[in-house]
């Protein structure tokens, strides 16, 4: 008997598949490796184009230099604080809203969904948002970052679909045993939803970690910026021709310093990813298929 994986066609497919995916892997990985190599390299070697996969003129000096900048660490701490607080708030809000929306007997459910989905396609625009946030007195405070993005509609819909897929019998049984709504949510539903919760935490945390725009808009003191704004300023530098042309006396920041800052900024995300990944696939697939 010939099973699928023994057929000649399948063998060839596997070889090609491996080759193609290895290629993809190399292409994806190379920029990372290159940045890491640059961060440990001598500046002149980078300028001369000698740095590819391995550091040339190995040195820790650039790390020491970046680490000696207090603004970098202040901003780094801000990023951690903003990410943790924002993720906590976002998880609370999203879970509550998604659970409510997953109940088909809820009156006005369609309107509530519509309100959420509406914001996915239309936004108030930049200046009205800015005026709103500043009239609320949120500028230059953590609230301007953690509150406006507390519910991501995409995450909300994934979560709602997940809750809808949960057997109603379980909740009914719990209700018969005398549990109230909150008990059901906290003791029955959430413990069974670890996969989707982990995924949502990952989604939110990564997006808050990477976000810079809200802070750029609402913060006007450099010690309130997250590290992403610091990094962006370092890398993007002058973006327009006029400023490049006229600021002739301005100096640019060395490539190795940029690389070190990039490495230090992505490390936490790189470290967290592998641990959350097993939930990640499961959580999203469940939501998607059963929705």
């Amino acid at each position, binding site marked *: 008997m010939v099973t699928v994986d023994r057929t000649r066609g399948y063998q060839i497919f596997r070889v090609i598949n491996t080759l193609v995916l290895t290629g993809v892997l190399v292409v994806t990985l190379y920029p990372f490796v290159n940045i890491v190599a640059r961060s440990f390299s001598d500046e002149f070697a980078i*300028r*001369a184009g000698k740095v590819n996969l391995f550091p040339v003129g190995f040195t820790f000096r650039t790390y020491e230099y970046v680490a000696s900048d207090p603004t970098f660490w202040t901003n780094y701490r801000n990023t951690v604080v903003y990410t943790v607080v924002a993720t906590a708030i976002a998880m609370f809000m999203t879970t509550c809203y998604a659970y409510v929306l997953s109940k088909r007997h809820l009156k006005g459910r369609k309107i509530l969904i519509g309100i959420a989905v509406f914001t996915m396609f239309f936004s108030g625009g930049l*200046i009205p948002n800015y005026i709103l946030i*500043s009239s609320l007195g949120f500028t230059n405070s953590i609230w301007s970052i953690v509150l406006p993005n507390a519910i991501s509609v995409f995450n909300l819909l994934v979560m709602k679909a997940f809750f809808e897929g949960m057997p109603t019998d379980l909740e009914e049984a719990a209700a018969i045993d005398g549990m109230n709504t909150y008990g059901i949510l906290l003791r029955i539903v959430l413990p069974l939803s670890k996969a989707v919760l982990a995924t949502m935490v990952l989604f939110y945390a990564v997006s808050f970690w990477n976000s810079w*725009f809200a802070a750029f*808009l609402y913060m006007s003191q450099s010690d309130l910026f997250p590290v992403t704004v610091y990094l*962006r300023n370092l890398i993007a530098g002058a973006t327009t*021709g006029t400023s490049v042309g006229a600021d002739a006396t301005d100096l640019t920041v060395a490539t190795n310093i940029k690389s070190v800052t990039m490495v230090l900024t992505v490390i936490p995300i790189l470290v967290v990813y592998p641990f959350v990944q097993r939930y990640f696939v499961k959580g999203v697939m469940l939501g998607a298929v059963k929705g």
Partner: protein
Amino acid sequence: MYEMNRRQAMAAVGAFLALAACSTDGGSGDSGEAKKSDDFAANRDGAMSDYAAGKQFTAAAPLTFGILYNNHPFYPLKKDWLFWSELTKRTNVTLEPNVVPLSDYENKRSLLIGAGDAPMIIPKTYPGQETPFVASGAILPVSDYIDLMPNFKEKIARWNLEPDLDTIRQADGQFYLLPGLHEDYWVDYSLAIRADILDELGLEIPQTLDDLHNVLKAMKEKYPDSYPFSDRWSNPTPGGALLNQILGLAYGAHGGWGYLNGVTWDHTAQKFAYTGAMEQYKQMLQFLHTLVEEKLMDPESFTQQDDQAIQKLVSGKSFVISTNAQTLVNEYRPPLKKANPKAKLIKIPVPIGPLGPVKADATTTRLENGIMISKKARDSKNFVAMMQFIDWLWYSDEGQVFAKWGIEGTTFTKDASGKYQLAEDVDFVGLNPDASKHLQKDFGFSNGVFAYGGTTELLQSTFSEEEIEFQKVMNAREALPPAPPRPLTDEEREQASLWETPLKDHATQNTLNFILGKRSFDEWDAYVQELEAKNMSAYINLMNNAHERYKKEHG
């Protein structure tokens, strides 16, 4: 998903600016007219009654002014900079910076002005960038108030800057930007060339574009494997410096960074012309095409990253590259010296082209980036004091020396002949490479927000000997008068911006095609016809009519 929001947001800024003309914005437009511009009875708090040019400004009472602050990554803002404390000591004024990363300064500026939340002082605005805000009524027509600024007025008169100032006047005859002022034209960009190769080939430093062509040919003959000329500053604008400050100046038609809205004043015709269709522009492209065709110039010059161009120079695959004073010293020489100790790279005077030996054509002015003032500042009781303060810090000789060099005896010394010298433990632009402190990073001086413009002496005080030599050669050349004003009305501006972008896209795209030989110059007329189909004549007529109208209304 966040990306999407951001882009929508940016579109919203644009939409708002278009709409802002219609909004009443708290009636600020009316209050300006109701109040006579020279009635300052209610705005004199803290001002000096006897403030005059050359006099130290000190506010009568401690004042605080908000300022939009462009935070440079090379010297990020520190609150303990000597600059802040000394400024307060001398002027009794404390600046309250609203810190914006340099990378997105322009976006935040539009947002804050649009939301009516901008600080009173908005610096780092380049001439022309103020125009979109004029219609919104959020920006003060500063030309009404220059009587409060004796130093500014004095410099305009002494350096004969009126024609330059005319270039930033709007349709109402006012200007809305306090530009930085230079005593003389400042040419910084040119070509860097390997002098040791010239010596080896027994060649002189090229004076004209023809000389340059011959030098490149000789280099190619000796080193057939090289492209003698491989250029940088091509991302995102191809030929950024080359087509603008270098060849643009030689031909009198600016491409690259200087293409802007594509309108050039043609001296001989006394009319505005579309840059991309000018004969001068064509000649410039033909020159470059010849270089590319003869394999003297690297075709990648117009697409590669700066780092790649530098690598080619360092590894001896090319010998000529665009430069300015800073990049020559900081980016080219150190790695080149490491790779090849015998290499000698020099910056040559801008090669002379058909326009003759000029240091400035109609497109260049002596204006620098400058300051916009929020309209609401006019109603502040400290308005007069603020204008005096701005006048002192940005326009008085003393204020300019302070912003650039710092404090005599602490950050610099001045010898009997008036030559500036950095203090021994202070570094700036590599003048004291072993010093422990940095003039910009540790003291906050020579900060792009506060220090620019001024006398040639002050400008050159940080230059090296060889750079001063270069400046001498360039300054001896002729300056053509700047283009006359052609301010558009709101409706015209809207119409012009609709035509401008497709024209510019087509011209820049074909610029590359012509240079690289993807399109033959036989097709030049066809190309001009294509521009014509994109409303080129209508666009240029608009500019010429605006010019005529301005001449009639304001002389």
